[in-house]
């Protein structure tokens, strides 16, 4: 029993850690896409933020400056996306792809030029990182059989970002469904003409959505390089931005279902790592690739309408042209 609990706590806390950047990116993508802008560039924004966070933290020794710089660079890329897609009505997918490819090259070029470690940044000391938080009472509860582990390792024992990510989900839900801004944002993603006719600026609404997306992806990137890990490494995001995109679609462009998808994809990843080389009774050895690929396969199946129906915002991908 004790062993099973320990195992469950291990898996679930790993799930939370893996899911954190997914949740942040998925919520960012949600704002962008609900306003009618496709965001393929989650991956690139997160990667740029991860690099800048680690670089800044290693030069200044301050984790908070690292986080600030990460948010700034993600916002800059978000504004670039907005400038191309909102102001110049460029192709949103092309813009996102451009940002991803550009960043995957730039982080290595600057990483090599500044740190000469094959694209890595120097390892950060604990002061320059966001370290796991020990909740009050962990010591006192440590010897209590089940509760001690759950309190210390599942509920506690994470860094600040994990809690921020979990908090952002209800905030996103509240903003989207319970505020005037959220209502307008959703409207601009469905029928921008109506919003325009009501005298509200379509461009400004979409720019605000893009800025929120930049903020969240910036936090997600900083999490990867200065909280979960102690340095930036090449291609650190490794497709997590795309998994977040998949999770957002899997959650049908709604906050809580998207959170569920992020946690599910995180759980799959945590299980995949645990199952490496393990023989499952009755099935034999499960190839890790099989579990790793499940988020993508499930998303394809969902989009094809085989499990429910995922309907994107109506005006998504269509540049808004104001009549003169």
């Amino acid at each position, binding site marked *: 029993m004790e062993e099973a609990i320990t195992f469950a706590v291990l898996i679930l806390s790993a799930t939370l850690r893996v899911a954190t950047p997914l949740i942040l990116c998925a919520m960012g993508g949600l704002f962008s896409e609900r306003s009618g802008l496709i965001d393929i560039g989650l991956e690139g924004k997160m990667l740029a933020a991860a690099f800048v966070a680690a670089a800044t933290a290693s030069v200044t020794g301050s984790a908070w400056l690292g986080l600030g710089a990460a948010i700034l660079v993600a916002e800059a890329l978000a504004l670039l996306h907005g400038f*191309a897609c909102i102001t110049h009505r*460029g192709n949103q997918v092309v*813009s996102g*792809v*451009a940002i991803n490819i550009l960043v995957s*090259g730039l982080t290595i*070029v600057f990483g090599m030029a500044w740190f000469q470690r094959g694209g890595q940044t120097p390892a950060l000391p604990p002061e320059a990182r966001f370290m796991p938080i020990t909740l009050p009472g962990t010591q006192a509860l440590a010897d209590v059989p089940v509760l001690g582990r759950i309190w210390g390792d599942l509920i506690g024992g994470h860094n600040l970002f994990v809690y921020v990510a979990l908090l952002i989900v209800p905030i996103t839900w509240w903003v989207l469904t319970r505020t005037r801004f959220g209502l307008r944002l959703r409207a601009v993603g469905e029928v921008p003409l109506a919003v325009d006719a009501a005298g509200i600026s379509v461009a400004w609404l979409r720019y605000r959505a893009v800025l929120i997306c930049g903020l969240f992806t910036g936090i997600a990137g900083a999490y990867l390089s200065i909280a979960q890990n102690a340095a930036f490494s090449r291609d650190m995001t490794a497709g997590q931005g*795309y998994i977040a995109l998949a999770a957002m679609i899997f959650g049908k462009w709604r906050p809580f279902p998207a959170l569920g998808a992020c946690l599910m994809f995180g759980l799959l990843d945590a299980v995949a790592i645990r199952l490496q080389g393990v023989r499952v009774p009755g099935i034999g050895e499960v190839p890790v*690739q099989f579990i790793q690929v499940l988020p993508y396969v499930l998303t394809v199946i969902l*989009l094809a309408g085989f499990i429910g129906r995922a309907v994107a915002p109506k005006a998504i991908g269509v540049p808004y042209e104001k009549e003169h």
Partner: protein
Amino acid sequence: MKAPLPGWVDIGLIPVVNVLLAFVVVGLIVLAVGVNPFTAVRIMIVGAVGYPEAIGYTLYYTTNFIFTGLAVALAFHAGLFNIGGEGQAYLGGLGVGLVVLALDATLPPVLLIALAVLAAALFGAAWAAIPAYLQAYRGSHIVITTIMFNFIAAAVMVYLMVNVLIAPGSMSPESRAFADAGHLPFIHDLLAYAGITMGQSPLNLAIVWAALCCVFVWVFLWHTPWGFELRTMGHNPSAAIYAGVDIRRMTVLAMCLSGALAGFVGVNEILGVHHRLILNFTAGYGFAGIAVALMGRNHPVGIVLASLLFGMLQQGGAELSFDIPAITREMVVVIQGLIILFCGALAHFTRPWFEALFGALRARSGRTTAAGAAEA
């Protein structure tokens, strides 16, 4: 009311200015790394075309860019955005590998190579056909599905290479080497038969196939009824339906052709150079194809020119990182990203400037003519 721009500005000047803007930004980045951009350009040009081996390498890279550039362009003409070139190229290579590994002891070289090329086309096409089918008949978005299929392809390949196709006793995930029958001839070997000596390079017959593909795409798109239907669908799907085009079937056809073209990267890499199945031989060519297609304005001639430029950048960039350690090969990836940005997403960014410029010019010449008329 804005006057329309002259045609040569629209299709000639603006794209060139966009590319130049991309390179200005590249120059600034090179400067930020602490290297003189003009020195870098000189080293790159010498490294890309300065000696015969370099030209061989440049053309070998060019071959890959032509295949993926054509793949993206053909889909663009149908109004479809194929981001899945990477996965389709990967699967194309798998098709080549499976055919050669199965038959290289039994078939004569010509037949084996023909079958391998066919397999590259079929595997690439099949990998593109699924997202196409899902978009045409189930309503899922092709951009998202092709992205997902890139990841699925990568996972399938890792699984196959690590668990199934790995050569017995090998430590790294590679298949056994192909027998000689499964080698596409190198150009330097062919030239040696003709009595011309050229330094060794990975350049192989696949470049001839790439040239043929350019001709094929040009004939198909602009000189066949299917090409006409395909472009009609790309311009205006409703008009295409009204004209009797089965746009579902056309979507699948366009993506299959696109996937087959991307799959030929496997011919150049696996059949032409590596002569065994390996991991990650696609090395981003699928994504680079987007830059090539945008820069080449989706026309085979433009794609060949853009591919040559990218081939030079790839080879010159390798030499550059050799000479100046501060600059890494990934500078080429940065250039690709910037070209996609300036030639794709920001394609109309400079247009208002030109409209203003030509508007002013026209107003001025209008005044002079009016003045001239008054004098007369």
